[in-house]
C-alpha cells in the first residue's frame, strides 16, 4: 500500500535565488485529511504546486505511487486535484458545464462518460442546477464550489486546496466545510482559518520560512500557544 503523498528532502528556489522550500519531508496516508498552516510567504502555495509537477524542486516527490517525472505527469495530474486560491483562475471556460468537463474531455473520455462525470461532480458540490450558467456571474461561494467540481470530475485520489474558505460568508463557509468533511479523499488544505483546521483536520503541518516547523496532532499543536505565536498564528 502506497502513501498518497510522499515528499523527501524537497528544496526549491525561485529563479531570483530566493529559497522558497528547504528540506521538506512529508508523508500523507490515503484518505488522511491534513491542514497546512503558516504565515504569508511561508511557502505553502509553493509546496502545493510541487504536488502535480507545476514546479519542480530538488528532492523526491511521489504521488499515489508515481514518482514525479515527465512521463508520469499526465497520470499524476489526474490523481491530484489542485484547486487554486482564486476561483477565477480555475474557471476559464464559457459555462460551468464546460469547466467541469474540461478534465474528463482532456483525458479523451466518451461523451456519455463526460456528461455523467460532470453530473456527479456537480451533485457532489450541490450545484446540479448550475451547468449552463456562466461562471463569470456566480458569487464567490458558488465559484468555489464549482472550482471543486472541476477537479472532482477527474475523480482524483488527492484533493489539494489553497485557502478554500478565504472570502466566504459564514453560510457559504459552513456549507463548504460540510462538503469537505463528506468527501472521501486524501486532502491537503492550506489555510489561515484556524477554526476550520480545528473542526475538520486531525493532523496539522505548520510551515514557516520554507520549512516544516511542526507536524502532528491538531489538538496538541493548538494547545502549544508558544509555538503558534512563534510562527505568527493564533489559537482558535
Amino acid at each position, binding site marked *: 500500500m502506497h502513501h498518497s503523498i510522499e515528499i523527501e528532502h524537497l528544496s526549491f528556489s525561485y529563479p531570483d535565488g530566493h529559497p522558497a522550500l528547504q528540506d521538506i519531508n512529508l508523508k500523507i496516508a490515503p484518505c488522511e485529511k491534513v491542514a497546512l498552516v503558516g504565515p504569508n510567504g511561508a511557502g505553502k502555495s509553493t509546496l502545493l504546486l510541487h504536488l502535480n509537477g507545476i514546479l519542480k524542486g530538488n528532492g523526491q516527490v511521489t504521488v499515489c505511487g508515481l514518482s514525479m517525472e515527465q512521463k508520469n505527469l499526465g497520470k499524476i495530474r489526474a490523481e491530484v486535484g489542485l484547486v487554486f486560491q482564486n476561483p477565477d*483562475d480555475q474557471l*476559464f*471556460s464559457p459555462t460551468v458545464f464546460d469547466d467541469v468537463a474540461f478534465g474528463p474531455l482532456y483525458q479523451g473520455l466518451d461523451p456519455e462518460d463526460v456528461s455523467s462525470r460532470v453530473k456527479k461532480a456537480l451533485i457532489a458540490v450541490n450545484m446540479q442546477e448550475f451547468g449552463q450558467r456562466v461562471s463569470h456571474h456566480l458569487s464567490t461561494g458558488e465559484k468555489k464550489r464549482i472550482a471543486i467540481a472541476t477537479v472532482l470530475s477527474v475523480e482524483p485520489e488527492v484533493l489539494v486546496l489553497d485557502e478554500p474558505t478565504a472570502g466566504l460568508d459564514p453560510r457559504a463557509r459552513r456549507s463548504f466545510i460540510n462538503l469537505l468533511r463528506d468527501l472521501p479523499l486524501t486532502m491537503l488544505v492550506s489555510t489561515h482559518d484556524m477554526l476550520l483546521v480545528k473542526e475538520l483536520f486531525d493532523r496539522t503541518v505548520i510551515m514557516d520560512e520554507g520549512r516544516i516547523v511542526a507536524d502532528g496532532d491538531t489538538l496538541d499543536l493548538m494547545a502549544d500557544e508558544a509555538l503558534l505565536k512563534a510562527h505568527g498564528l493564533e489559537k482558535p
Partner: protein
Amino acid sequence: MHIHFLDPYQPLKSPVHSLDARIKFILTVAFILTASLAPSAAWPVYILLLAAILAVEILSGLGMIYVLKRALLALPFVLAALPVIFTIKGQALFNLAIGPWLLTASSEGLARFVSVAFKSWLSVQAAIVLAASTRFPELLQAMRAVGIPRLLVGMFGLTWRYLFVLVDEALRLLRARTARSGQSRQAGNKPGGSLAWRAHMAGGMAGNLFLRAFERSDRIYVAMLSRGYDGEVRTLPIPAFSGSNWLTLGTGLFFLAILLIFGSLLWG
C-alpha cells in the same frame, strides 16, 4: 509568480542612464526623425547615424549584442517595404513571374528598400536604448514635459501598470489549465482532445481574460473616482532644466541637424 521579463529597463550605472529623461526622449525622437527624413540611399549619413547609436550603446553599458539582438524584432516589419523593389521605375535588375504578373525589380527600388530597412533598424535601436536606460515613470514625466497631452501620458502609464497584472493573470489561467490536463486511468484514451476542442478552450480563456480586464478597468475607474479623479490628470511640477542639460540637448540636436542638412543637400 510575477513577470519582470517584459520590463526592458536595465538598472546599470552609466552616463546614458544618468542623463535627464527629457534629453533622452527628445534626442531619441529627433534621431528617429533624422533617420526617417534622410533621403533614400544617403549611405554616408546612415553610417554616421549608425556610428552615433553604436557609440551610445557602448557608452550606456548595455552592449551592442543586447541591443542588436532586440533590434531583430524590427525585421518582420521591414517586409512591408518589400514591394517598393518592384514598384519604383528604373534600371531593371531581374524579372519575377508570379502567375499572370511579371514583376520587374529596379536598382532604384532595391536601393529604396535597403534604405527603408536600414532606417527602421537604426530607429528601433534608438528606441531600445531609450527604454533600456530610462525608468518608465521618468519616461512618462519626460513625455509630459515636452507637451504630450496628459490624458495620453496617463493612458500610457495605466497600460504599463496593468500590462504586468494582465500577464500574471494569463499565466495563472494557463497554470490552472495545466493542473487539470491529466491522463485517463483507463487504457486506450488519448489525452489532449481534438484540435478544435483545444482551440475552443483557448478561445474561452482569451474571452475570459478580456472580460476580466474589462471589469478590472471599471473597478480601477471607480477607485479613481472615489479618490477625487475628475478627468484631469494632475502631477507634481517637473524639475527645472539645468544649463548643462541645455548644452547636451543642443549639441545632440545640432549634430542631427547637420547630418540631415548635408544628407538633403548632397543626396536629396
